């Protein structure tokens, strides 16, 4: 109708929002959950939380306590809580370098691996939405169709390609990981962004053309600013994916200098599987960044999730 819709984030996600709507009123409307239902939900919620909680509590217990008594005993000895495990694990050498270095490796891997594919995919999504060229529609179908190719199929040939000496990226594990993540993110990111950018009002694009804007201007001055909600959702999505990734980092990282923190944690499991004081603290260092991002930006994350799977 008017200019409002794109102002809100509605274009891609439609009416779906992740909030409690009308908890009161409309008594008849819902298939009311009843007491049993509520109890089931809370039991499940508890079950779902206990494992993580146990790990968190353990990570602050003295080594001896972790190894001899269950974490639920910690509440009787709150005074024993210590951060020693954290300082110990941060300085522990994994593959010859300190664990803390892996944390920074993950940071260095993740930020470009989120930004690069989104920028490239946004350009492509704009072209698929608003530029006219022959074969546009089937090309888009092919791109989206590539979502079915499992990463596993691409690892070895891509690795061989990267190691071609004239490319000069064979030694640079970060670059290889960035490119690999960008590639694997491409089909879904283009798909989601095309859904959003293609849903921007046509008349606004035309108005810009009549005003004399080129494609590049329209993209930079209109499409990108208007797509911020979608970019944020997809960015968080990609962030969680890359930070949690083990396979790509392991395959393309090469030596320990370029490995992500997930790899370090798995190595600790392999070599010191019973040193729970290291494992619990190490795992929590690994998890803390995505947990904070996830909890603080859950709204956007959910929106991205729904854009991909719910009608709207």
């Amino acid at each position, binding site marked *: 109708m008017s200019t409002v819709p794109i102002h809100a984030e509605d274009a891609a996600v439609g009416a779906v929002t992740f909030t409690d709507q009308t908890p009161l009123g409309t008594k008849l409307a819902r298939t009311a959950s009843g007491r049993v239902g509520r109890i089931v939900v809370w039991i499940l919620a508890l079950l779902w939380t206990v494992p993580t909680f146990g790990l968190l509590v353990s990570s602050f217990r003295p080594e001896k306590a972790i190894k001899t008594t269950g974490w639920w005993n910690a509440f009787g000895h709150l005074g024993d809580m210590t951060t020693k495990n954290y300082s110990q694990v941060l300085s522990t050498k994994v593959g010859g370098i300190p664990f803390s270095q892996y944390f920074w490796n993950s940071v260095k891997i993740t930020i470009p691996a989120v930004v690069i594919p989104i920028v490239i995919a946004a350009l492509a999504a704009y072209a698929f939405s608003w530029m006219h060229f022959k074969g546009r529609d089937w090309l888009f179908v092919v791109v989206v169709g590539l979502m079915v190719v499992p990463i596993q199929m691409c690892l070895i040939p891509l690795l061989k390609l990267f190691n071609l000496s004239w490319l000069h990226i064979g030694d640079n594990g970060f670059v290889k990981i960035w490119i690999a993540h960008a590639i694997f993110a491409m089909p879904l990111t283009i798909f989601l962004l095309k859904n959003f950018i293609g849903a921007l009002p046509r008349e606004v694009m035309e108005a810009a053309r*009549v005003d004399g804007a080129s494609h590049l201007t329209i993209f930079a001055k209109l499409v990108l600013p208007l797509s911020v909600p979608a970019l944020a959702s997809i960015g968080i999505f990609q962030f969680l994916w890359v930070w949690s990734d083990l396979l790509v980092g392991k395959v393309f990282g090469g030596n320990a200098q370029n490995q992500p923190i997930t790899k370090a944690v798995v190595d600790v499991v392999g070599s010191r599987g019973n040193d729970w004081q290291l494992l619990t603290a190490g795992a929590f260092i690994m998890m803390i960044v995505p947990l904070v991002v996830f909890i603080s930006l859950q709204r956007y994350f959910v929106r991205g999730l729904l854009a991909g799977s719910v009608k709207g």
Partner: protein
Amino acid sequence: MSTLTMVNLQKRYANGYEAVPGLDLEIKDGEFLVLVGPSGCGKSTVLRMVAGLEDISGGDLLIDGARVNDMGPQQRDIAMVFQSYALYPNMTVGDNIAFAMKLRKTPKAEIAQKVKEVAELLELDKVLDRKPGQLSGGQRQRVAMGRAIVRHPKLFLMDEPLSNLDAKLRVHTRAEIARLQRRLGVTTMYVTHDQVEAMTMGDRVAVLRRGVLMQCASPQELYERPDNLFVAQFIGSPSMNVVRGTVVSTDHGPGVQIGDQTVELGSVGAARFPGIGEMIGRDVAFGVRPEALGGDGSGRLTMQVELVEMLGSELLVHGTVNAPAVRAIDTGVEQSDKPTSMVIASMDPRRKVEVFSTVELPVDIDRVHLFDLDTGLAIGRDAAGRVTDSSSPNELDKG
């Protein structure tokens, strides 16, 4: 100042559909031309071809005599107001208005000056820093106007710019736009499906059906002398009554037999329809507007009253006559299967008319229209009228 000329302008889609088979139209310098027609008649396609947003399949589009077919919209020096206003949601009102000038690298001081002028003209100076989402519908509409006029383009193109306003605001804005256009003197092409808008705003109105120009004339001419049944029924509300009749000869000259009664055209009719003498016995479409049935007139038409609507300024009387209705449809002319049809007469509101009574209506013969039942073309007119022979097929395309 500028003129816009379309020569055999065509639009064909890849699937073979011919949206515009070939349009000839000229808009004079400073003229306000309204393109009107039912939805799907191709009026927006024509506008978008002029804007450069739609490829032209054939023919020529000239601005000031120069062919612009292959130019992009940004090179044509036009400004457009969209139906949805198409404001840039991420920019303030001021930035919206300034956007085109910024792209053209206009000096900052000049931009600021022009934005200020336009904002004052359109009473937008208080909202320059707001985003479009915070504006009312009327304000948004004015921003869209402001964005167009700030550029002093050769041509204004407007695509149903009032359709998102509520009824009251629409009437007000209608007058505003017309006033503004006359003041600025910019050649304007305005597209609408609303014939009232077309009639009230345009210097000339072009009526389009399925991409074909039915008639292009001043509002008054369009109303009083429609070239064909389609224009006759499209323009005017309530629309013209059209029923099937047979041309007959009476003691007082020619007449039209409608069902069991005859409307005598008399000498006025004989002058109005010069060739009618040779048409005796032919079936025609007999058209008369409601207001030509309620006042004075030498003809007589009797109907059975079914409904009386009191509108304050007039009284609309609906009744039946014993003749099938005739209607212009998308592909030509359609006659109703029903032997009776509804006729509306507009009368003096102080008159009293009983429902279910039979009333005899005076028919103003000077405002009677006859149309060919096959082609829908108007039958022979007075000396000034252009349509004189219903059998000539290319009359349809005449502007």
